[in-house]
């Protein structure tokens, strides 16, 4: 289902996500975002572009991200004054299957990755030009490290703490990298896919209902 090679330009996973700027479906992006795309693709090598539902995403390797963010903030045509969001998504390695057996006719979802990755999405917004777009990077999930963006946008400080708390990404140079929402001595990174939901069984009279991650429906 979500495997590679389906030719779907919206995919966030697998090898087929890489689309060169020349092959981007133009209709999905507005004029303004196309200009942004040209600006960034021209300024940096190795940028991949994804246009999906009118949104622009630029995928770049982790080493380049800070330079890209700096360029986004300082370049007059881009002028992104605000880092709106920094979020993470975990794509674990291995084949996974999601199947519901309680009722016939339900689909069986299969998806998998070659190597486990943690995707970081930096969403930047410009108030002057009124545009917003996403810088995406992929980190290996066994030892994810990333230099901190706090020097460029101070809002990254609190957001990087959250990404560290929930995914275990180590941000080099962060002034105060410690857990923010979980208790300080918590072990494990809850938003990773290999971390269980952690619910308890609910008991009723004559039956029990398993927690949501162990249900088969």
């Amino acid at each position, binding site marked *: *289902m*979500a495997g590679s090679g389906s030719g*779907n330009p*919206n*995919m*966030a*996973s697998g090898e087929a996500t890489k689309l060169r700027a020349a092959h981007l479906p133009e209709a999905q992006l507005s004029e303004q975002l196309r200009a942004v795309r040209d600006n960034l693709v021209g300024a940096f090598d190795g940028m991949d572009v994804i246009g*999906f*539902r009118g*949104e622009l*995403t630029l995928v770049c390797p982790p080493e380049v991200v800070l330079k890209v963010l700096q360029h986004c903030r300082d370049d007059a045509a881009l002028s992104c*004054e*605000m*880092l*709106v*969001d920094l*979020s*993470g*998504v*975990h794509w674990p390695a291995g084949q996974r299957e*999601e199947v*519901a057996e309680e*009722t016939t*006719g*339900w*689909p069986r*979802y299969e*998806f998998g990755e070659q190597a486990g990755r943690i995707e970081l*999405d930096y*969403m930047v917004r410009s*108030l002057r030009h*009124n545009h*917003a777009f*996403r810088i995406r990077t992929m980190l290996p999930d066994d030892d994810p490290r990333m230099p901190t963006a706090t020097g460029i*946008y*101070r*809002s990254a*400080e*609190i*957001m990087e703490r*959250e990404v560290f708390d929930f995914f275990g990404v180590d941000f080099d140079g962060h002034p*105060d990298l410690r*857990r*923010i*929402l*979980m*208790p300080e001595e918590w072990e494990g990174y*809850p*938003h990773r896919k290999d*971390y269980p*939901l*952690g619910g308890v069984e609910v008991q009723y009279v004559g039956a029990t209902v398993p927690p*949501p*991650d162990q249900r088969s*429906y």
Partner: protein
Amino acid sequence: MSDQQQVAPDRPAQDDDADLTTEQTREERAVAAASGAAVAPHTYTVASGEWEDLPDAVEDDLMVINMGPQHPSTHGVLRMVLTLDGETVVDNKPVIGYLHTGIEKNLEYRPWVQGVTFVTRMDYLSPLFNELGYCLAVEKLLGIADEVPERASAIRVIMTELNRVASHLVWLATGGLELGSTSAMIYGFRERETVLDILEYVTGLRMNHAYIRPGGVVQDLPPEFAERVDTLVSELYDRIDEFEDLLTGNPIWVERNKGVAVLTAEQCLDLGVTGPVLRATGLAHDLRKTAPYCGIDQYDFDVVVADTADAFGRYLVRINEMRQSLRIVTQAVAQLPSGPVMVADKKVAWPAQLALGPDGIGNSPEYISKIMGQSMEALIHHFKLVTEGFAVPEGQVYTAVESPRGELGYQVTSNGTNKPYRVRVRDPSFVHIGALADLTNGLLIPDVIAGVASLDPVMGGVDR
């Protein structure tokens, strides 16, 4: 004493209690006395004079005080570790996470529609905004963003703007209470009850409604809605004026809020602060105008801006935002188009129709008789849609709405299944907590309370 005379031979004879010595010196003297050697001490002798001229006997006199998490004046379970120089705050390290609920992870184990009930409980003062952001993201992923009926969009606008008024009223009430005005608390909650009456009339619940669903809203407006809203709006205009009479010219309110907790525009942008706090610095950035959603740009309203970047400016911005919201509601109700309230695509639309029966709200009897008695297909379809839900194409989108606190954004990632793969909520209160250190720098403790109140963080959104 013999020791003292031995150790400080050139000291003029004075009273012993005018002698100020440091601890170190006493220790040194003890050591000296023990070893029998003569040691020159650090002694400060004061005959008469001012305390300020006295060099600090202790170098570092910063005090670290913990405020919270249980505190009547922090907005919920916010803990601030304040480093104080006297009563002035030198550093403020907020500690959050006391309300962390794991909602984002919970969403990954439920079908897309059930996510609405989880998401609505994050920022609990503006639940309809949470639902709206989530549903807009899901609709964008589904590709049906243009197919949502106009009536549903208009209803969404009406309900969310009413929710904005209710949220600002709670802000006024709690902010007033924290600064000592119990009247503001009583008035604010009294007004909020009237707004909640309307929300209950439409959705069935006072809070955490689960009313806005992917594809539209779950049920249509009840019959006397327009009249009730008109009464409410005219009443609220008067009551907001009453609020302004109570507070805006009030010397206590002005003293406590003017010049307090200043965040300049550059600081706001750098720290990612949006919403009334940003608009109080003079920047007219409102997502309802710059990136409109649900057809809100067809209504005529102003973006309220103040130019003092302090707590008083934020107060003025919020009071006037309430008036603008009422303006939007009046226009929306007057221009309400007719039609369905759910998207036409049967694979997505919530199948059941709700109706008010003798025992409360539930599935309407006509619908029940249709699926149970008349059409097997409809029954299967209903069952499948309600239990399994719909599958959403893969991809990632970001949608943002202008919640009462700022930009509430949703980064929703789907991998093609019937459950979300990852929902990340960019809550404005969370980002504003990162601005607390800048906000409270150099303030006195009561001003910290006024500053935090003017920032209006809601801990449910901060901790999710």
